């Protein structure tokens, strides 16, 4: 069985059907790209995997490492290894980034029955990780994402991912709003985290991100389900032909 199994998933938001029987498998260590037009349900899939409660699953299941996660609260899913890099990272006024990282890491460790990290261990971990992403001490002292630029927010997401070391990372439109330099920094950060022990789902509208993070497989999503799967060359085909062939309307 694959590490992530999404089976015939039907999801509604405020009585509006968004996912219509989505089925998807992501192998352990695999990087899967999910591409699709706006409104195809890509972000909904990301939120449902992370456990946002405004999304109502009416049918189907999501298995992580063989266990259904649909009844789990977001924090339990995180402790089990799920991480969502938000398309629009939230500003958390009053909570210093450093405090936030440490609280999150230790909470996960506690849930998993692991010992909390000591202050020096934690400081070293953050130091070793933040440098690559161009995140300095000043940013770490500031409140989470408050006053951060779009690029800083995205780099902060990758920093969290690097510190929390998830087994399944879902990156929701991580490329949106980034200029080419910021995109490269973020992509390098993600590539450093590629590992046989870590599966990734890259959600993107554009092929551009996939030049920097080369996926193992590409899935095309339209109208709430996966409509085509293939290798990385599928992304190039989409770039050339557009999504019209899947949306059922002439471009």
């Amino acid at each position: 069985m694959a590490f992530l199994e999404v089976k015939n998933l039907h999801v509604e938001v405020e009585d509006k059907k968004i996912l219509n029987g989505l089925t998807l498998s992501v192998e352990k260590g695999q990087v899967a790209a999910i591409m699709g037009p706006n409104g195809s349900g890509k972000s909904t899939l990301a939120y449902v995997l992370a456990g946002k409660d405004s999304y109502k699953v009416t049918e189907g299941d999501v298995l992580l490492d063989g266990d259904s996660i649909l009844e789990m609260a977001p924090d339990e899913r995180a402790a089990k290894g799920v991480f969502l890099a938000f398309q629009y990272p939230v500003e958390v006024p009053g909570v210093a980034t450093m405090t936030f990282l440490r609280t999150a890491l230790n909470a996960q460790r506690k849930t998993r029955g692991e010992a909390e990290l000591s202050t020096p261990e934690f400081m070293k971990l953050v130091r070793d990780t933040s440098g690559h992403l161009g995140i300095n001490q000043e940013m770490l002292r500031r409140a989470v994402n408050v006053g951060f630029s779009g690029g800083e927010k995205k780099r902060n997401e990758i920093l969290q991912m690097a510190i929390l070391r998830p087994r399944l990372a879902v990156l929701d439109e991580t490329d949106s709003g980034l200029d080419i330099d910021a995109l490269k920094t973020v992509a390098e950060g993600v590539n450093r985290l590629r590992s046989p022990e870590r599966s990734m789902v890259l959600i993107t509208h554009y092929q551009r991100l996939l030049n920097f993070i080369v996926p193992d497989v590409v899935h095309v999503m339209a109208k709430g389900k996966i409509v085509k799967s293939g290798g990385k060359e599928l992304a190039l085909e989409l770039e050339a032909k557009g999504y019209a062939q899947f949306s059922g309307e002439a471009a």
Partner: protein
Amino acid sequence: MKADVRAIKTPAEQALSAAFATVRGTLPGKGAVAAMRDGAFRRFDTLGLPHRRVEEWKYTDLRALMRDLYPLAPAPDAAARARAKNAGKLLAGVECRRVVFVDGTFTPELSDLAPEPGVTIGSMSEALGKGDPLVTAHVGHTFATDDVAVALNTALMGDGAVIHISAGAEPKLPINLIFATGSDKPTSAFVRSLVVVEKGAKATIIETYESGDAQVNAATELVVGEEAQVDYIKITQARALHVASLLGSIGPRAHFNTFAFTAGSSVARNQKFIRFAGEGTKAGIRGVSLLRGKDHVDTTLLIEHAAGHCESREQFRTVLDDESHGVFQGKIVVKQHAQKTDAKMMTRALLLSNEAEADNKPELEIFADDVVCGHGATAGALDPGLKFYLMSRGIREKEAEALLIQAFVGETIEEIAHEGIREALMIASLKWLGTRG
């Protein structure tokens, strides 16, 4: 003039009248002070306790909330003093000069009265009794108000602190006035304090009110001199009924910061009447209130910019759980000649329960034409988006909520200059959060 439109007095009003008649002859102060008491009492006698049809008391109906008057507290005996020995624990870790009042009475044996140049600390009752010129000059004259709670305090004021900081003096330690309950029976007290900080002096003064089953009506008059720097902090943990009035007159080019921290209080009203009497002053008027159960906490401000070129920041945050009720009324008045006033008021209420209620009433009354003034008020629950973000990182729901609440109050507590006090209030907030159901 209609002298009295009310036919019936409540038991509390009758008891207040009876108490005044009984103690009038023994209250400290003669001549002008006695006349001031009589005048203030007549005001109360005419109007009665403030109630919901009095605009300033609309949300805190004192007539309904105060069913009866507890007996006036007697001078504390040895047992009462012993019970109050550990009062003021919240700031136990902060090095302060502690001045203790038990059941409203100055208690030298529990106080640190070591002499310090430029600092005079004494008892209000004594000062009123001997006609201390500082008291005669200021008590009742700092801020003219018709408020009935202030009038009652003036009529019945017993003891309290008189602090004088001479020009240019800088007391080494913050001065912590601790008003504690010692009596094991319900009592009431009317405390009046006067703090005069002269030109260029620099002081941190804290009032801590820790009361058990006691009704406390406290009023403090604060005179801040030219170029003085004053941090004035009030900590309130009052289990029964607490009405406190700060009457302030702030001189030119002063730096004045005040902060009110209220937690674990059943019925508390903090009213502040502050006038900027000279140009070029910068002031921060802030507070945090933490409410649960059926707590009722009211913050009412009347900030008067009577001189130009002053900057004031009013920032208040309230956390409300269970069926608690929070009130914020903030009025900023800018007089016609107070040009270049810069005043910003912001109040935010965080509702943790559907049954909690927050009333916000900001008001600006501007008569000058060249000013920058603004106000904002929000009331809402914890942002579900923020909570989800934190939980998606592995933080448990209760912990995520605690972190967000802590941040909510922390942003205001952070403004306190004194590190030790800042930390003590942060810890007190965490403790309050820790006992959340």
